């Protein structure tokens, strides 16, 4: 067997083996070793995959897939039974109905003996798969390592819940395995199978704590993703009655747009549900009830990234069609509105959730536009977002265990109270919105891509206004962290080593990827674009150089504290002449002692969740209806 296919099978199967081991593990130390070694192995193999395969182009692996197909069918039925079991237990009739519809569709395409069902090469690898594998492999592994520390604290804080750490890791590793399967599958039936596995895993992980709220939110995530699953299955049914081979990604993308408009719209819809775009964004916000590493995993390297992955894959079909533009509108408006809602949120995890929804919206918009430049921006967004967002979640998780709160207002002066964690968090926030960090580079690339695309100006305008909103909510959070409270106590203590490894690595990655993104671009993204579009996009050399200069300045400027300077006095802040104590208590007009408290603006009359979300849901539903209309009436091609 070829080395690459061995690596690929290793990545899909090895996490499953680790999951099996988890069944048997009893002691903490054993679990620690197994998880750490597995994480290391997965991370190392993805890097090996990069080193050996980056210059090989696209490779397809053909073999007799019949036994595997059968196994997948059986497993799919197992998934159905599990979901039905939960749905019946909790009397969720919507989920029961959706599951039954989906199962019917699965039976339909499995029993249809048309020639197209057999895909010659079910597995493949190209540069985009490698990028996704690196994201899943490296970030996923770091989150696993982090979870070791986190789950121990978690059970110290939640004593009422029975310890199910093993189950937790089983779900996580199955999830990672499914993600690898998804990005390496050429056969749509295989993609669909792994797609369903991620739906199940996310359902189980969101409902992990088994509280009432967790169960409710898990079911929300489930029915929304089942809806996407049904669309996906319907696309497969449609394609089974097309000429042979049409169930392979390789064939669909070169078959000409007319044949695949309807399945493209269906899969586009499935992508929207999984990527938590409006009107389906509420499941991702609800998913916050899960332990923080789960949030980190769902938001950065898995689940939602599966949604945008499939959209980016289908981008050549979307390009220049009404379907593509309507998708782009859904993404763009989701970006704008979710960014607005984030301003009104004071819960750190909810801010992160809305920011994820917003950024995925941008990726969806790029995929919908579908030009080479837009896809370049989309892939950069996927990479940078995965790194910064996982870092942010893990930081919030660590902070939460220390200060017992995930409210941003409670993070006042964190740089004094938890200096090292706050510094890392500051890097994460800077990575999300400031030049010269990754997300801003990507937004810049997106502006450039939109403006050169036909009718792209609308998206430029939406992006520009949306970016201004993101600036506000990130900067005010960053400001809160950096407040210096002179008499605050440092309560950081010892951070768990496992958590620390993950945090430092991700912070390092946030900065390093900004330095090396031109290399990532020329090694992986540009060859991918050249193969799929025949053209490439890139920022000019000069501009990259200027970005690097800014980055160097940013790294060097903190050293300015060390520069020699004249002696200065430290004075208390100005309180308008009112006598105040150093801990900022002052005498109010009635003579009573009052504590001075500062709080951020949340501007809820403008950016309140209920109002804006309703606008977004209506607007995006309208565009989705338009998309299906265009697909059905064949007017999809502009």
């Amino acid at each position, binding site marked *: 067997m070829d080395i690459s296919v061995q690596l690929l099978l290793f990545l899909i199967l090895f996490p499953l083996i680790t999951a099996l081991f988890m069944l048997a593990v009893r002691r903490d130390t054993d679990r620690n070793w197994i998880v750490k070694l597995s994480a290391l192995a997965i991370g190392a193999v993805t890097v090996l995959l990069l080193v050996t395969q980056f210059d090989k182009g696209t490779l397809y692996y053909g073999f007799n897939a019949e036994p595997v197909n059968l196994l997948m069918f059986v497993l799919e039925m197992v998934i159905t039974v599990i979901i039905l079991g939960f749905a019946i237990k909790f009397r969720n009739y919507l989920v029961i109905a959706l599951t039954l519809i989906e199962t019917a569709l699965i039976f339909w395409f499995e029993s249809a003996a048309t020639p197209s069902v057999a895909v010659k090469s079910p597995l493949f690898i190209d540069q985009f798969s490698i990028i996704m594998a690196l994201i899943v492999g490296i970030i996923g592994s770091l989150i696993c390592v982090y979870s070791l520390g986190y789950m121990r604290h978690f059970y110290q804080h939640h004593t009422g819940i029975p310890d199910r750490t093993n189950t937790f890791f089983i779900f996580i590793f199955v999830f990672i395995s499914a993600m690898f399967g998804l990005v390496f599958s050429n056969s749509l039936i295989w993609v669909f199978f792994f797609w369903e596995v991620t739906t199940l895993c996310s359902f189980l992980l969101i409902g992990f704590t088994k509280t009432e709220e967790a169960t409710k939110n898990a079911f929300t995530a489930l029915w929304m993703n089942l809806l996407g699953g049904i669309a996906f299955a319907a696309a497969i049914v449609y394609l089974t009655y097309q000429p042979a081979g049409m169930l392979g990604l390789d064939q669909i993308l070169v078959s000409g747009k007319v044949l695949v408009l309807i399945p493209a719209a269906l899969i586009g819809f499935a992508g929207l549900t999984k990527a938590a775009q409006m009107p389906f964004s509420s499941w991702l916000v609800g998913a916050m009830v899960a332990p923080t590493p789960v949030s980190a995993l769902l938001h950065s390297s898995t689940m939602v990234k599966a949604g945008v992955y499939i959209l980016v894959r289908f981008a050549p079909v979307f390009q220049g069609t009404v379907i593509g533009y309507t998708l782009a509108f859904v993404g763009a408006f989701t970006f704008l509105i979710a960014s607005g809602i984030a301003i009104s949120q004071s819960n750190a995890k909810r801010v992160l959730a809305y920011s994820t929804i917003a950024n995925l919206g941008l990726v969806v918009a790029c995929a919908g536009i579908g030009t080479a430049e837009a896809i370049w921006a989309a892939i950069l967004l996927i990479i940078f977002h995965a790194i910064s967002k996982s870092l942010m979640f893990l930081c919030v998780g660590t902070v939460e265990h220390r200060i017992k709160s995930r409210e941003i207002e409670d993070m006042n*002066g964190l740089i004094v109270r938890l200096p090292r964690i706050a510094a890392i968090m500051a890097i994460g926030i800077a990575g999300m919105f*400031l*030049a*010269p960090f990754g997300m*801003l580079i990507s937004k*810049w690339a997106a*502006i*450039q891509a939109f*403006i050169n695309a*036909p009718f792209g*100006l609308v998206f*430029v*305008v939406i992006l*520009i*206004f949306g*970016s*201004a*909103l993101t*600036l*506000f909510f990130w*900067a*005010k959070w*960053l*400001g*809160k962290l*950096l*407040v*210096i*409270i*002179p008499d605050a106590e440092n309560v950081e203590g010892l951070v768990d080593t496992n958590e620390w490894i993950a945090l430092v690595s991700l912070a390092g990655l946030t900065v390093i990827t900004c330095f090396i993104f031109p290399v990532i671009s020329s090694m992986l993204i540009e060859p991918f674009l050249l193969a799929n579009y025949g053209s490439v996009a890139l920022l*000019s050399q*000069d*501009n990259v150089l*200027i*970005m690097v200069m*800014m980055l160097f*300045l*940013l790294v060097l*400027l*903190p050293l*300015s*504290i060390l520069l020699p*300077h*004249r*002696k*200065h*006095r*430290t*004075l*208390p*802040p*100005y*309180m*308008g002449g009112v006598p105040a104590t150093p801990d*900022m208590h002052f005498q109010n007009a009635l003579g009573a002692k009052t504590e*001075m408290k*500062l709080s*951020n*603006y949340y501007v809820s009359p403008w950016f309140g969740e209920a109002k804006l979300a309703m606008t977004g849901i209506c607007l995006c539903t309208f565009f989705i209806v338009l998309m299906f209309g265009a697909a059905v009436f064949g007017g999809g091609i502009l």
Partner: protein
Amino acid sequence: MISLLWAVVYILLAPVIGGLVAGIDRKVTAHMQGRVGPSIFQPFYDVGKLFEKEGAVVNETQRFYVISYFVFAIFAGALFFAGGNLLLVVFALTLAEVFLVLGAYTANSPYSHIGAERELIQIMAYEPMLLLAAVGMYVATNSFNVSDIAGFPTLLVLLLPGVFLGFVYILTIKLRKSPFDISTSHHAHQEIVKGVMTEFSGPNLGFIEVAHWYEVILMLGFVFLFFAASWILGIIAIIIVYLLELAIDNTNARVKWQLAMKSSWAVALILGAGNIAILYFLGRI
């Protein structure tokens, strides 16, 4: 593309010209108010005095934020005058502003805190228009590079009148003039004292003052770009626009931040995006 010479000229001359502009500003304002006003070199004396003063800080980290604001404000301007990418100029300027805001946040002081919040709202208010100005110039000239835009043969203001008006509108925010001197004002008599700058004093305040001069010159350079096809018109435009800002400053009371934000976005959307849309679709026919 990049002309180092112009960048160096900017770095050396911008504080001199910026200071003089501030001096003339005060003189003209005084005349508008029926006063004689100080010498036009007064801003230099003021800043000189600030640097001689004893350093007094609220905390040790303030210096870092001030220096970073100063460095990136110069960086943004130098990039502009070197003929660099306009979007990148705006991003660098935003980075500089964020440092100023963070510096104000760290002080843990009520006045500078509210100033910081309002400053962020101001950035949120003007940034779309600033980026739209860059986008408009791209649609007109097919380049984001200041060097190409400056070399464009047609007067850009004829193609982008709406964008120009929108830019002048937000220029009031950038110059910290009434009615939009919301986060801080040139006069320390507003309801939040000196807002975002309340807790900076001595040399730190001096650096902020000089950085503001750099920013003013950058903004005037932006105005010039709209008239770059003709040098003389460009300079006349700068003078008229600045005098107009002074007239607005002296005839308007400060508005609430809500109005500043709403009106800036409306102007950006209607004048800015509307103008670009017309140009964009005309260009594609």
